[in-house]
């Protein structure tokens, strides 16, 4: 099922990727090619087969609820593109 340009634009917005026109066209073609290859999955017999999300046998790993150290505010802000000294700063959220 080939991806139409609107679909590519929709997925790009969901993924927060600002692809330009030419990139969107190329991406559509690449995704078609890959989806065509993975269509092999549709032939697999998976009736009554459970899903595997992870391969370990571990379930609900908890730790004791004891306070431990964490990053200081200074450390947490050290890599931020923009701060006001105490908080991360971003542009307007409302358009």
């Amino acid at each position: 099922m080939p991806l139409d340009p609107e679909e590519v634009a929709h997925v790009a917005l969901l993924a927060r990727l600002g692809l330009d026109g030419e990139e969107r066209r190329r991406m559509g073609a690449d995704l078609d090619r890959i989806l065509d290859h993975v269509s092999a999955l549709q032939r697999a017999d998976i009736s009554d087969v459970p899903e595997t999300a992870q391969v370990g046998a571990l379930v609900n790993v908890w730790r004791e609820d004891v306070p431990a150290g964490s990053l200081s505010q200074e450390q947490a802000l050290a890599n931020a593109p923009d701060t006001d000294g105490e908080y991360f700063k971003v542009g307007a959220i409302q358009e």
Partner: protein
Amino acid sequence: MSSAGLTAAAMAAALRRGEVTPQELLADARAQVSRLDSSLNAFLALTDDLADRQAERATEMLRDDRLGAGPLCGIPVALKDVLCVEGYPTTAGSRILENFRPPYTATAVQRLIDAGAVPVGKTNCDEFAMGSSTENSAYGTVGNPWDVERVPGGSSGGSAAAVGAGMVPISYGTDTGGSIRQPASLCGVVGFKPTYGRVSRYGLIAFASSLDQVGPFAHSVEDAAVAYAVVAGNDPRDSTSVIDAVEDPLSALRDGVRGMRLGVPREYMGDGLEAGVRERVTEAIRVLEELGATVEEVSLPSTELGLSTYYIIAPAECSSNLARYDGVRFGMRVERPSLTETYLRTRDQGFGNEVKRRVMLGTYALSSGYYDAYYRRAQKVRTVIAREFDAVFETVDALVCPTSPKVAFTTGAIQDPVEMYLNDALTIPVNLAGLPGISLPCGFSDELPVGLQVIAPRLQDARVFRVAAAYEAATEWHRHRAPLVAA
């Protein structure tokens, strides 16, 4: 004489005999990097202060028996640039993390530091570990030590090349679909991918969390086993970390393969193999048979579905993991008047083509209307693939097969994404099932290295080393060094 190209075991012995100091080994490593890295580009950054401090610490540890210097004490190592080291640039091969300096250190790296190892630098890799050739790095391609015009494999290409070029005897990479074993194969070194969960993922920049695993590169199976043992073991900071105690990977190293049952999966010896790869691997299997192993053909019928399963599951997980690169708390930001526009432009300029492709593919596979047809279905096929491994391990102790269907190819030769993905067809199923696997040198085809893969059941990492060590002890391939290693 330079120590370049020696095994870690030989270096450790020389350290203990007082023939060399950690500072001298470090100086040799730096000399090799400065001589060769302008053509190889294996390193993205050198961690000079850390290396100097560690060399000093190692000297003290070796001097005082009470400090318990282990086998990696004083040994130069290199770290794939997806492993966080507090205060040092960690880019994951991406523009979006160009100026990122992690506020903490990965558990695997901390264990190396505690053991007195000497981290020389951070190695080049495909962006966010997505690729099979290291051509997807934002910081340039990496040369293969056997032919610098060819790729080293990927995604841990810099780590593989650093060992292959004799810059360091041990390096670490990550393997999500073959990213340790395939470059090891292409660079003529040993590369080990542990059972999923054996090495902590804390401080590892995530690609696909249910598949990612840290592991070593080395010149010998013993070195790889030692390098694995130092970083392995439960970590409360990784909730997927295996709790059971780690079996000593050195315990069975000299046990040989006499009486072992080895399986050769028919589907791994199919039409996709280059003739030279098939010949070398067939010869290697014969060697194991001569050593007393019983070899039989087995079948893993869903092997051909592995690639398709992986290229849904890994992109789905990566599309979620990479959502954190939003230009707000860390990493690059391309400022625009609105926040949504800022996200769109930041991620457009910060990510390269392959990362965008996989984020798009994963977002698509998880999106409403396609989730059942792609993601849920892939998770079920993953179960089928894992069960087929379980079934063959009822009759054989381990599997032996090629690591990569081909030897190192010329940089730029593969442009089609699906053709590139096929490089990992024989390594991906191992990640989907969470098994341990190793690649070790088994000869050459057109003067380029070929790798033999050994696969064992979950948690049987020691068995992988046992089979690999038996083959290595009977052959000389692991002693070959790329001509450029010697000055």
